[in-house]
C-alpha cells in the first residue's frame, strides 16, 4: 500500500522539527546553573509572599552641593566601608564621612564613569568610563583603551569581574580581559549571535555570562564550552508584548543581572525574569514596576532593584516596592504592592530624583545613582 501525501517534504520537516525540539526540552539538557525557582526563593520551603521585601527609607542625598563633583551620577558601588560613585565629572568616593573626587588629572581614563565593579579577590576597582577602562588599585589608575590594548571600544556601559576575567559591555561589542594572560577577547555580531555590536550590560553566573545586546536580546555565553546562544523577543521588535511570558519582553535590552539562579533582564519596554525554563514579563501596567523604561538592574539574593526613569522599583517577582520623589519638594512616596493590596507611604525626604541610573545594596544600605545626585537609604525595620 502506498500512502500519497500532498506535502510529503513539509511533513518530514515537521516531524524532524518535533523530534529535534525534544532535545531542547529534555530536562537533562536544561541549564543546570539556573534553577526553576519561580515560586520559591533562597530558602526553598518559603514562598515569596512569606518572605518580606526589604523596605528602605531615611534617604540622604548628595549632589554637587554637598560632596559630588557634579549632579549627574551614573553608577554606584558599595565597597566595604566606602562608596564609589561614578559621575559625569569623575569618580567620587565616600570614605570615613568624607567625599573625595578622582578625575583624569589623577590618571582616570575619562571623567564620565558609567560602570563600577570590584574584584572580590584582589580588591581592584574596575571603572567603565566614556573613554576607556580604568583599573584602580591602591589609589593608582591603569587605563585600557581601544588604542593601547585589545579592548573593543572605549565607551563602556557595564563592567563585571568574574574570577580572573573582567567583562565589559561597550559600544563596539562585549570584551573579556583575562587578567592572567593580559589578553582581550572581543564578541560582536561577527562571532556571536548579536544584532549589532552595541552592548549595554553584562553579568556573570557560576558558569555563564549574560550580555545585554542592543537589539539582540540576551546573549548567553557558556564559559566551559565558549559557545553562545541568544534569547530574543519571540514577538520581534514590537513595542507590545504580544504573547505574555513567551521570552524576553524586548530585544532592546539595557541590562542584566543574575542572582540565586534567576536572570533579570532590563529593557526600555519592561522587565523580564528567567529561571532557566520560564520567562516572565513585567510592565508598569500589570505590576508595581515604576516605568517600562529601565536604565539599569541589579539583583541581590532574591530581590531585583530596578532603576527606571520614574523611580526605583524593587521586586521579588511577586511583591513590589517603588520609590519615587516629587522633584520639586524632594518629598516622595514608597508604594507597596502585594498582589492586589497596594499601600502608599509618604517619604520625606525621598530619592534625589526619579531618573534612577544605578543602584547597589549591601547589608542594610542601599545607594541609588540618579540624574540629580546620589541617594543613600537605610533598611527599615
Amino acid at each position, binding site marked *: 500500500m502506498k500512502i500519497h501525501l500532498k506535502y510529503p517534504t513539509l511533513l518530514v520537516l515537521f516531524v524532524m522539527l518535533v523530534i529535534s525540539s525534544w532535545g531542547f526540552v529534555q530536562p537533562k539538557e536544561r541549564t543546570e546553573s539556573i534553577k526553576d525557582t519561580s515560586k520559591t526563593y533562597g530558602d526553598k520551603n518559603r514562598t515569596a509572599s512569606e518572605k518580606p521585601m526589604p523596605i528602605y527609607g531615611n534617604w540622604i542625598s548628595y549632589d554637587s552641593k554637598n560632596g559630588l563633583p557634579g549632579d549627574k551620577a551614573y553608577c554606584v558601588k558599595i565597597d566595604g566601608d566606602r562608596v564609589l560613585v561614578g559621575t559625569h565629572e569623575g569618580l567620587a568616593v565616600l570614605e570615613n564621612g568624607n567625599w573625595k573626587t578622582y578625575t583624569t588629572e589623577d590618571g582616570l581614563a575619562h571623567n564620565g564613569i558609567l560602570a563600577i565593579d570590584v574584584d572580590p579577590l*584582589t580588591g581592584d576597582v574596575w571603572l567603565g568610563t566614556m573613554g576607556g577602562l580604568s583599573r584602580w588599585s*591602591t589609589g593608582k589608575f591603569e587605563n585600557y583603551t581601544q*588604542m593601547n590594548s585589545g579592548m573593543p*571600544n572605549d565607551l563602556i556601559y557595564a563592567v563585571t569581574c568574574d574570577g580572573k576575567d573582567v567583562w565589559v559591555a561597550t559600544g563596539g561589542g562585549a570584551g573579556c580581559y583575562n587578567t*592572567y594572560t593580559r*589578553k582581550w*577577547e572581543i564578541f*560582536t555580531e*561577527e562571532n556571536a549571535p548579536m544584532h549589532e555590536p552595541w552592548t549595554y550590560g553584562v553579568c556573570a553566573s557560576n558558569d555563564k555570562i549574560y550580555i545585554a545586546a542592543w537589539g539582540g536580546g540576551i546573549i548567553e555565553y557558556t564559559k566551559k564550552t565558549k559557545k553562545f546562544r541568544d534569547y530574543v523577543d519571540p514577538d520581534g521588535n514590537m513595542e507590545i508584548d504580544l504573547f505574555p511570558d513567551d521570552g524576553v519582553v524586548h530585544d532592546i535590552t539595557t541590562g542584566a543581572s543574575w542572582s540565586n539562579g534567576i536572570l533579570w533582564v532590563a529593557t526600555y519596554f519592561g522587565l523580564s525574569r528567567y529561571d532557566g525554563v520560564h520567562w516572565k514579563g513585567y510592565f508598569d501596567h500589570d505590576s508595581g514596576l515604576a516605568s517600562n523604561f529601565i536604565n539599569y538592574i541589579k539583583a541581590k539574593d532574591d530581590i531585583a532593584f530596578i532603576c527606571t526613569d520614574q523611580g526605583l522599583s524593587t521586586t521579588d517577582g511577586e511583591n513590589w516596592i517603588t520609590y519615587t520623589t516629587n522633584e520639586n519638594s524632594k518629598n516622595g512616596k514608597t508604594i507597596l504592592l502585594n498582589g492586589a493590596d497596594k499601600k502608599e507611604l509618604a517619604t520625606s525626604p525621598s530619592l534625589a530624583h526619579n531618573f534612577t541610573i544605578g543602584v547597589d545594596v549591601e547589608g542594610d544600605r542601599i545607594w541609588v545613582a540618579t540624574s540629580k545626585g546620589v541617594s543613600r537609604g537605610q533598611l527599615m525595620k
Partner: protein
Amino acid sequence: MKNAKRKTLLWMLILFGFIIYFPGRMLARHHVNYKTAVTDHPLKCTSCHVYTSKNKFVTSLINEDYYSPFNIAVSHDGSRLYVVAQDTDELLIVDTESNSVLHQIKVGVHPHSVILNKANTLAYVSNQWSDNISVIDLAVSKVTDTIKTGNGPSGLTISADGSYLQVVNTYGSDLSVIDLSTKEELKRLRTGSDPTGTALSPDGERLYVTSRRSKIVPYGEPLVSDLTEINGTTLRVSEHHNIEEAYMMENIAFTPSGDLAMMTLIRPKNLIPSVQVEGGWMMTHGIGVIEQGANGRIIQLLTDEPNSYYSDPFDIVVSPDGKRAYVSNSGADRVTVISVDSIRAILKETPKEKLKNIANNLGVSSRFVIKRVPTGANPKGLALSEDGKKLYIAEQLEDKIGVLDTESLQMEAPIDLGGPSRITVARQGRRLFNNAGHTFQKQYACYTCHPDHHEDGLVYNMAGKDMGRNVTNTQSLREIGDTPPFKWNGKNQTIYKQDGMRFSTVLTRTEQFSYDDLDAITAYIKRGIKYPPNLMYNPHGKLTESQLRGKEIYNRTKDNFGNVIPENNRCYTCHPAPLYSNLKAADVSTLAVTDDSILFDTPHLGNIYASPPYLHDGRAATLEEIWTVYGEDNKHGFVNDLTKMQLNDLIDYLKSLGGPEQEENSTQIQETASF
C-alpha cells in the same frame, strides 16, 4: 730518477702551498677585517667557526654543563645548604660539615629560588621556565608534588601561619597566592613589571614584591618602578609605591625587628648621552630603604663610591641582630657589608627635603659601607646561617658556594659543587658579559642593561653627544646570533664589531677587549643565550584559533576588500620565519625629527611579547599602539583595513612567536582559521 720526481713533486706542492697561502691569507685577512671591523684581529678560524658553531658534535666538545648556583637556603641547624643549580635544573643538597653535595634532585626547568617550610621538612623550588613549583620532601630528598603557578615563577615567601605560598611571577608581573592545603592557586595579584624579589615582614603583616623593569614612561620623563605592598592578612595589594628614577630592584629583606626593609636597586641615567660614562655617574647602584611605621619614608642610598662602582646589586640579607646587611654585587664580584645602624642614623639625621638628593650622592656610602669582600665570579643569592655567623654566597659563574665568616669578614674555603673545572670559551664570555670590570670605573656590565640577557625596557641616548637625539630602545640579546646586522641603524655587521671596537669607543670608554676575550664574549652572545619558553602565549607549540587567524593576516596578500597588498607592505616580507626578520633595513615611517635620516634594521620578532616598549625609540607602549597610534599611513604593514578583532588576532599571533628553535620544533599543523 725517483728522487728527481719526488723533488719536483715537493717543489710543486710548495709552490701550490704558496699560491694558496698568500692569496688565501689575503682573502682571510679581508674576511676577518670585515667581520671584526679591525685590521689586526688574529687570523684564527676557530674564533668564529668553532666557538660559534651550531654543530651539535662540536658544541658538545667545546662546552660543559655547569651547575651555575643561583639561590640558596640554609637549614635551621646550619648543617644543610639547599642550592638552586639553574643550568642543570637541580636542587643540590650540600652538607656544610663535609662541604660535599649529598643529593642532586631534578626539579623543573630553569629553577630560580628555594624556600623551606618552618619545620624544614619541605623545600619549595620555583621553576621559572616551566611555570611550576617543585615540592621536595627533605626526608627522602625527592620531588613529591608539583604546583602550577603563573608565568615565570621566581621569588618565594610562606605566610606567617604557613598556609600560603606566595610566588612572584616574573614574566606575568604578578604574584600567585597558593593555598598549601589544596596546592591550588587561590588568586593572582598584580605587581610591578618583571618582579623577582619578595619578603614578608617579621610580624607577617606586610609582604613586599620588588619589580625590575620601570613602568613605561615617555622618553624624557624619569623612570619609575613599582614596589608592591601586600597586606599579609587580607592578601590584597595595599599599596603600589612609586620608586622614582630606579629599577632592577632584584631582592628585598626586612630587619629582624621589622623597622626597615631594604632592597637592591640601580639608578640609571638613561636620559643623558651615554658618552657621559667617561664622566662617571652613568649607572649607579645601591639600596632602597623602606622605613616602616608612621614615617614610611623610602630613601635610596648609593653603595658606589665616587670613582668606583659596584654594579648589579642582586641579593640582600640582614644579620639576625639587625646590625649588618650584606649585598651581593654580581657585576663586581663583591659582597658589600653594610652597617644598618649607620643607615638608621642617616635616616634620623637627614631632613626630609634632603633625602631625595642623597640618592645621587656617591660619597654617602662611606658612612655605611663596612667592607667590600671579594668573591668568586658573579655572586648571586645569599643566605645567612641562623646564628648569622656564616654567609653563604651562590657564585653563579664560579660553580661554587662562597663562605664568608661574618665575624672576621674573611672568606673561607669555598664549597666546590663538583662542576667542570675547565672554563670554556663560552663560559669565559658569560663571565665577561656579567662583569663590569671592562667599563670605565666599572660602572656597568653588559648584564646591567641586558638583564637576563634580554633588555631593560629603557630608551637610551646612545652614543650621541646631543641630548635627546637618536634615542634608542634597548634590544634583546636572546638568540640574536643569526640576525645581523646589529644596532637599530644596522651599522654593525657582526657581534665582533658591536662588542669589539665599537663597544670600547662608545659604551665602555676603556681599552677594548683582548681578542681572546672578544672571541669569548662573541661566542657567548651568539650561541649561549636562549629564549625562555613562551609559556604564556604558546605553551604547547599549537596555535589557538585566534592565533591561527592572526597568522593568516600576517601572511595575507590581499586586504579585506580584495585589493592586492604591495609585497613590501606585507608582514611576512620584512619579518619572514624562522627569524622573523629579512635582516634588511626599511623605512616604516617611524623616523622622528630627533633622528638622523636613516633606515632602521628590521628587528626579529621572537618573544616579542616580552619586549615592550616597541619601535626604535620605544614610543609604542604596547604592540597595539604600533598600528593604532603610529601606523596611520599604512607604511608599517598594511593594517588600516583591519577590524579591531582582526588586529587582536594579529597581535595574538605575534605574541605566540618564539625563536627559530620553537619554529623548528613546532609540531603544529596549519589549520584553516575560522573568521
